[in-house]
Structures are given as structure tokens and as C-alpha cells.
């Protein structure tokens, strides 16, 4: 039974991934019979490289894919190093999950309204302090270097990395490590950075690669906050795929492959960087200095995370204001009136989308969790080689969705599977499984083997060990992974729309369709609705272990 798990997982991923890729690679070399092209050529590539501003688009994507994880990881590590159980620390830890539940596009949209020249902050100080009766003509959003976009991505990735780190930390017993280092005279932040960080890093490395892949290929955030002339590669690919001129799909497919190459390049750069930082770390550690920079590191971590969390929270606040706002003209600090109108017009059609969203996200997450747990358990039990199909898992994240999904639809149509909710669930699995696997695998593999040995030596069967030892200890991580899986599923638009032939309305398909109309109030309402289901998931993921282990103090820490 268990032995089949990795095979099932492999096939479930491999079928769609290989077919999805095939339908990207073939058109990239000129083969797409559906539009009457059946001769292989390099023309799509030549067209791609002669597209105006293509180098800059590609460079933007690469830089974003590196700068975002570097800043986000630095801030998260420094914050964790300085964590002291203060009120602020606890507040931030508590805000992590709800903030993670806000869809990227919604957070970006809120942020744009927060910092735009006509945005909330400008309205707060106008006209009294700034003297602005009309919005100043300042170039903040969509700046050509993509700085606003990267700032938006950093603020959104920080909660993700923080949650990953918090889920992994209890296993490392950071308290005792730090205590040991402190007894040798190291200041607290340095003690953490020297003893805990090197052990923590490998455990959040896979989620970090997901951040790199995401930041180098993100579409929605880049459209809202990113540069327009030229836009990032991912945005331009989407444009070519959406073009009424169907022959552009060939060049678009070549672009999709370039996108994969860019993301892989970002990962490769990261690996080089990793080696360099590792060396510096060892050198720094070996020097034995115990107090230098302690204060500066502490403060930069705190400031970084506070700014990020405040920006995100403020984005949610302005979204909420917009969801209830009547007319709201610049420079008024608040809307002239408040209204339920935006909610009334949407909630009448809410029942089916919400039911579908719940069914799809719960089912796909359950499938993903069972398969991933079984695969990891099989590894442990049979000592068989690790599930190394990482490329299978990363591919759905790396290949631009619009290209990838086209292949999936051709695949399901070839199999003459009727579009509908089951197909959508299967499609979601392709995107949910990778995240569940990445968030769970390292913690699972690095669980102290002595627990298992001890239980086995007391005569427990492998199954009993799994249910009584491994799963309870890893419950927090497994639930976090499920919550992330659910959030990923809830956020899927194209797989739902195309695999379901639009017949399976979810909260997200409704939200995206209505968002295309551009009314900020309507977008705000749906963004909040879209956040509710994942937020409930994250809250449950935190609450369940607390509830179950309320009488076991050491277990509570792992939650």
C-alpha cells in the first residue's frame, strides 16, 4: 500500500506536468496544428528575441526573483534571532497567518491604494499638511525598476517564510542552543544566528525556492505594482497568450520556456550565493567575536518586520474601508458615506461559489496531504531513496500557468474527460501537492529518529509509531502545510476556469471576473471574501494543536 504512494504521487504529477510541458515546448518550436502550424522552426524564438524591451523584461524578472527572497529571508532571520516574547513579537506571530491568507493580488491592490499619490496615506495628510487639493503627479507605483513591485512581494513573502520557520523551529530546540552559546558569552542575536540559523536554513530551503520561483514569475502583483514599459516577462507572456492573434501563441510558448530558464537561473544564482554566504558565516563564526553588531542586527530585524507587517495590515484596512465606502474623493481622509451596497450586490450569488470553493480546496488538500504523508512515511520506513522528483513538483510553479494549463486542457480533452468539479479538483492537486510537499518534507525527514527508535524498541508497530508518535509531533506542521495547500487551491483562477470550462464558479473565478471591471469597491469586497476561507484554515491550523495538546506543555510549543 505504502509503497505505491510515491508512484501514485509521481504519476499524478507527471501526467499533467509532462503533457503540460509538451504543449509548451512544441508550439515554442513552431508546432501547433490547432492554428494551422505544423512545421518545426525557430521562428517563435526569433520573434521573441526581437520583441521590444524583451531583455529588460527578462532582467526584471530575474532581479525580482533574487532580491525578493534575499530581503524577505534576511528580515525573517533577523527577527527570529531577536525574538524575545515581547508584546510586539507576539502580535507579529499572531498576525502572520491571517496576513498569509490575503491573496497576493488583493494585498498588492491594497498596497497600491495605500501608497499611490492619490492613495490613503496622501489623503490622510491632505490638504491640511501637504497642501494638496489634487493628487501630486508623483511616480511611485509601476516604477521602471520594479522597486514597488519587489517591496510588495517582500511584504507578502515575509509571513510565508516566517510561518515556515516557526513551524520548523520547535524541532531544533532553539532555546537550548541559544542558552549554550550565551553561556559562552555570545550576545543573544549572535547566539541565535550562529547556533540556530544554520540548522534552520536547510529546513526552509525548499519553501524558499518556491519564493524564488514565485517572485520571478508572478503575474498579478506585477500587473498591479510592477513596471509597464516594459512589463515583466511573465506579464508579457500572459498578454501574448491572451492576444486575439492566435499565432502569437507560438512566440508566447517560447516566452514561457524563457520564463522557466529565468526562474532556474535565479535558483542557480541563489545556490552560488548560498555557498558564498555559508563561507562568510563560517569565517564569521570562527572569528569568535561575541558582541559586535548585536544591537544593529536586532534593530534592523525588528524594523524590517514591523514595516512589512504594518504595510500589509494597512493594506487590509484600506481594502476594508473600500468595501464599505460610498463616494470617496481626494483629498477626503475617509469616504463621504458608508454603504452595504457593494456587499448586497455580490452576496446574493455567493452560495454556489463558496460551496464549490470549500469542496475543491478541502478535497484537493486532503488528497495532497495523504499522498505526501504516505510518500514521506514510505521513505522513512523502507529507507528507500528520497522522493527526488523535485523537478516535477517545481514545474507547475515554474511554467507560466497560462501555458501550462493549455496543455492540461488538451490532455483532459484527449482523454474525453468531461469538464467539471472533479477535473478541477484534480487540476488543483497539481498545484497544491507541491506546496504541501515543500512545507512538510524537510521537517518530516529531520524529525529526531530517536523518537521512532524508542517506540520501536518498546514493541510498537510501524503503523502505531506513525499514528502515535510521528503524526502527533508533526501535527502542527502538517496542519500548517494543509492550510497553505488550501490557500493555494482557493487562489487558483486559470485551472478552475479552463479545466471546469467556466462551469464551476468559485469565489476566485467570480472575484477575478468582477475585478476585470475595475471598481475598487467590488474588488475590495471579493478580496476580503477570498481571504476568509484560507484565514479560517490558518486559524484552525493553529487552534487544533493548542486544543488537542492543552494538557501537554512541551507539545504546545510545537504548535
Amino acid at each position: 500500500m505504502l509503497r505505491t504512494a510515491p508512484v501514485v504521487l509521481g504519476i499524478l504529477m507527471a501526467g499533467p506536468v509532462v503533457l503540460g510541458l509538451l504543449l509548451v515546448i512544441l508550439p515554442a518550436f513552431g508546432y501547433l496544428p490547432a492554428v494551422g502550424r505544423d512545421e518545426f522552426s525557430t521562428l517563435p524564438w526569433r520573434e521573441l528575441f526581437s520583441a521590444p524591451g524583451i531583455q529588460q523584461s527578462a532582467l526584471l524578472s530575474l532581479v525580482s526573483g533574487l532580491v525578493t527572497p534575499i530581503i524577505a529571508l534576511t528580515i525573517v532571520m533577523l527577527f527570529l534571532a531577536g525574538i524575545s516574547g515581547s508584546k510586539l513579537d507576539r502580535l507579529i506571530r499572531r498576525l502572520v497567518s491571517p496576513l498569509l491568507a490575503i491573496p497576493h493580488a488583493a494585498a498588492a491592490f491594497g498596497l497600491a491604494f495605500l501608497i499611490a499619490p492619490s492613495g490613503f496615506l496622501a489623503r490622510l495628510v491632505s490638504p491640511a499638511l501637504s497642501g494638496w487639493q489634487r493628487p501630486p503627479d508623483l511616480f511611485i507605483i509601476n516604477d521602471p525598476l520594479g522597486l514597488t513591485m519587489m517591496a510588495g512581494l517582500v511584504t507578502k513573502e515575509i509571513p510565508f517564510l516566517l510561518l515556515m520557520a516557526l513551524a520548523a523551529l520547535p524541532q531544533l530546540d532553539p532555546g537550548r542552543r541559544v542558552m549554550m552559546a550565551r553561556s559562552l558569552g555570545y550576545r543573544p542575536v549572535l547566539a541565535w544566528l550562529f547556533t540556530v540559523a544554520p540548522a534552520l536554513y536547510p529546513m526552509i530551503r525548499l519553501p524558499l525556492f518556491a519564493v524564488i520561483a514565485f517572485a520571478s514569475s508572478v503575474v498579478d502583483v506585477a500587473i498591479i505594482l510592477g513596471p509597464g514599459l516594459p512589463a515583466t516577462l511573465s506579464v508579457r507572456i500572459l498578454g501574448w497568450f491572451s492576444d486575439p492573434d492566435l499565432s502569437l501563441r507560438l512566440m508566447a510558448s517560447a516566452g514561457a520556456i524563457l520564463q522557466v530558464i529565468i526562474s532556474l537561473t535565479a535558483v542557480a544564482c541563489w545556490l552560488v550565493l548560498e555557498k558564498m554566504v555559508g563561507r562568510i558565516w563560517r569565517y564569521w563564526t570562527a572569528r569568535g567575536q561575541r558582541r559586535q553588531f548585536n544591537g544593529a542586527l536586532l534593530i534592523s530585524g525588528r524594523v524590517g518586520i514591523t514595516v512589512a507587517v504594518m504595510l500589509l495590515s494597512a493594506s487590509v484596512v484600506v481594502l476594508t474601508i473600500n468595501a464599505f465606502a460610498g463616494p470617496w474623493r481626494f483629498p477626503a481622509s475617509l469616504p463621504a458615506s458608508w454603504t452595504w451596497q457593494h456587499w448586497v450586490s455580490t452576496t446574493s450569488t455567493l452560495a454556489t461559489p463558496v460551496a464549490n470553493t470549500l469542496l475543491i480546496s478541502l478535497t484537493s488538500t486532503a488528497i495532497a496531504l495523504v499522498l505526501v504523508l504516505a510518500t514521506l512515511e514510505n521513505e522513512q520506513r523502507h529507507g528507500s531513496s528520497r522522493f527526488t522528483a523535485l523537478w516535477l513538483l517545481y514545474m507547475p510553479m515554474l511554467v507560466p500557468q497560462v501555458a501550462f494549463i493549455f496543455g492540461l486542457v488538451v490532455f483532459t480533452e484527449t482523454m474525453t474527460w468531461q469538464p467539471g468539479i472533479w477535473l478541477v479538483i484534480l487540476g488543483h492537486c497539481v498545484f497544491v501537492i507541491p506546496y504541501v510537499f515543500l512545507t512538510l518534507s524537510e521537517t518530516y525527514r529531520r524529525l529526531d529518529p530517536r523518537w521512532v527508535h524508542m517506540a520501536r524498541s518498546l514493541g510498537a508497530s510501524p503503523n502505531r509509531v506513525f499514528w502515535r508518535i510521528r503524526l502527533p509531533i508533526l501535527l502542527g506542521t502538517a496542519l500548517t502545510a494543509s492550510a497553505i495547500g488550501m490557500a493555494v487551491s482557493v487562489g487558483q483562477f486559470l485551472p478552475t476556469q479552463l479545466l471546469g470550462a467556466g462551469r464551476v464558479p468559485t469565489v476566485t473565478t467570480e472575484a477575478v471576473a468582477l475585478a476585470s471591471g475595475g471598481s475598487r469597491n467590488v474588488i475590495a469586497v471579493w478580496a476580503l471574501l477570498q481571504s476568509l476561507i484560507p484565514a479560517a484554515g490558518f486559524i484552525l491550523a493553529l487552534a487544533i494543536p493548542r486544543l488537542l495538546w492543552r494538557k501537554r506543555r512541551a507539545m504546545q510549543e510545537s504548535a
Partner: protein
Amino acid sequence: MPVICILTYLTRVASAARQHLAVLAGAVLTLAVAAPALAASAPKDWSQVLQQAQGQTVYFNAWGGEARTNAYINWAAEQLAREYGVTLQHVKLSDTSEAVSRVLAERQAGNADNGAIDLIWLNGENFAGMQSNDLLFGPWAEYLPNFQWVDADNNPDMRQDFTVAVNGYESPWLRAHLVFFYDTMLIEQPPGTIPELLTWARKYPGEFTYPRPPDFLGTTFLKQSLMELTVYSSALYSPVGDSHFDTVTEPLWRYLDQLHPLLLRRGRTFPASGAGMRRLMSDGETALAFSFSPSEAPIAVTNGELPETVRSYTLHGGTLANVSFLAIPFNAANKAGAMVVANFLLSPEAQHRAQDPDFLGGTSVLAVNSLSSEWQQRMRQTRRHPAAPSPDDLDRRLAEPHPSWIPALEQAWLKRYSQP
């Protein structure tokens, strides 16, 4: 490391599942592409169509970005269920390309008669693209009983979509016009022509911008400008290859070079879409904007998104206007039902409601003179929202250029303005 993993696993998966994958890959590669379904008989006998349509569920893929349009389609669904026993399901799209992708994938997979999409709302480039790739079913549109009311013989735009002959492959639904709107609180006199826009922008720098091509509304602005600026405007009605592009478009680029520094953010960035342009106006960043829907400003005013001082108008020399159509994919599973829906949406009842500012506030495609005297009266009595353009405004129509100009203009624009 991951690269190595990729390679090792590639070989492993290949060996483990080689047969399975080979079959699938082979299936995809060698599939005979489905031929367009010409077999379905032309719907000359309408009663037979009605009979076939009974009990069918029609999946109508239409942009769902606006609550009123969605409500209107809902209303149509209620009527259709009651009168014809047809279930109309609105598949809400954020972009027509989602439907096109689906049809294309079905074609690629050889699905010739069980397609998931029955009716698409489209026009112009999307029609030309689907039609030239044989992705549409037809001809059917002129057999609809209600087609007579559009008086196509006197309204050639009912048979031509961006100069491309429709040939009965799509049925007209609504008219669209390029309409400008401005805030009377901020500016006294809006520009009446494209050349005037430049002098106007000198007086009001930073009060205007346009969506960046290849957004279709941004490209529409380029087309409108080109038509007013070039002396070769007749060349725009033939394929772009037939004329000397640089000569025809030279005045446009000279104009834009002057205009851009006077736009919002000095033309260094442009909104991504028409919706983004409207949001800038709603935030008070700009005072002038435009849309392809005459009802956009009235709806935004009603919702409180735009101030009540906003008014719409069209440029004095006329603005681009087109008709949006409904088309049936070549492999639609419920073609009869789709025709019944298209026919209903063309009925005086549906068109009258579409024109009513309380419901859709659009412009009907019907030729009012061809209707019965009762409907003539009712259509003529439709109220007008104060922020809507006047009927005279909407009568000044310029036909759309040949669709091949669109990518050419977009490419040229991107080449000139997308390098910082």
C-alpha cells in the same frame, strides 16, 4: 542540485512510466485536428431549431466584469427558461481569451462535436482570429427570425466586423462607441478633436493618460488618433500590408512624441487597462478619460465611483464605433440552444431593456424604423442618464480599421515607447 535531481528523475520517470506517457504523447502529437463542423444543417427551419433547443443548457461565455451586465444576462436566462425551455448559464470571463484558449485546446485534442462552450461574446480581432482558424460554426446568424430588425441592408456594420465579412458566423448584439468623459468641476472645455487634445493638454498638463497598448482600449486611442491625423485614412480599411506603414503612421508618432510629456506622470507610465484609467479619474488624478461603452460613465456615477459632475461626449469628427457579436464555436454541444439565445437577445424586448439606463444603458443594434410602431415608440422613449452621451453624439460613427492594423500599431508603439 535541483538540476541534477531533474536529470536523474527525468530518466527514472521515463523508464517507470514510459509506456503510459508514450501513448499520451503520441495521442497528442498525432491527433487529427478536428475539422470545422459544417455538417450541422443550416438552421433554415426555425421551428426545428426551437424543438432541438428544448431542454438544452447553453454555456454563454461572456465578460463578467460588470454587475449590471451580469444581471442583464440573468434576466435573459429567466425569460429563456420560461419561454423556450432553454437553460442559459453565464460563464463569467475576465478576458475573452479564456474562452478562445478552451476552444483551441478542444480543437487540438480532436473534440469535434462536444465542446464546452456554446456561445461567445466577441468582436473584431477575436472574431477575425477565430474565424481565420476555422474555430467558429456557421453560417447561422442571418437565419435568426429577429435578424430582420437590424436592417442589415442599410446598416453594413451588421455584416462587417472590423472590415472582415461576417458571413453569418456571428449575430449582432450591442453597439459600442468610443466615448470620452470628463469632470466638469475640473475642466471647462474638453478637447473636441485629437489635434485639440494636444493644445488642451498643454493647458491642463497631467490631466489625461491612456491605457498602454496592447490593451485594446489603448490601441483604440491610437487608431482614433491615426484616423484624425493621417491624410491616408482610407488606407486603414485595407490590410496593413497594402500600404506603406511608416508613411501612414508618421503623423501619429510625431503627435504622440509631443503629447506624452503632457500626460499623467509625463507619459513615463500608463495604466494597464481601461479600468485602471477610470480608477485614476475616480481618484482625482486625471480629469478626462474614455471608454468603449457609452454606459460606463453613467454606471460609475450611479455607483458613486465618479463624481456627479462627469459628462460624456464624442469627438466632433466622429469616433470609432463597432458592433459586438455573439458567435458559436465549431464544436459547441448545444448549437440550437445557442441560436435561440442569440435570437432572443436580438428581440425588441431584450434590446429595449439593454438600452434602458436602469438595466444596461447600452446602444441597441436594431434599426428602429424597421420595428412595429409600438416598439418604435418604446425604443424612442428610452430615458437618458445625465452622464450619458447624447444620441447625436452616438450618431457620429467612424468604422473600425482592418484588424491587421492593430498588431502593427501595437508593435510600433511598444518599440518606440517601451524602452526607457
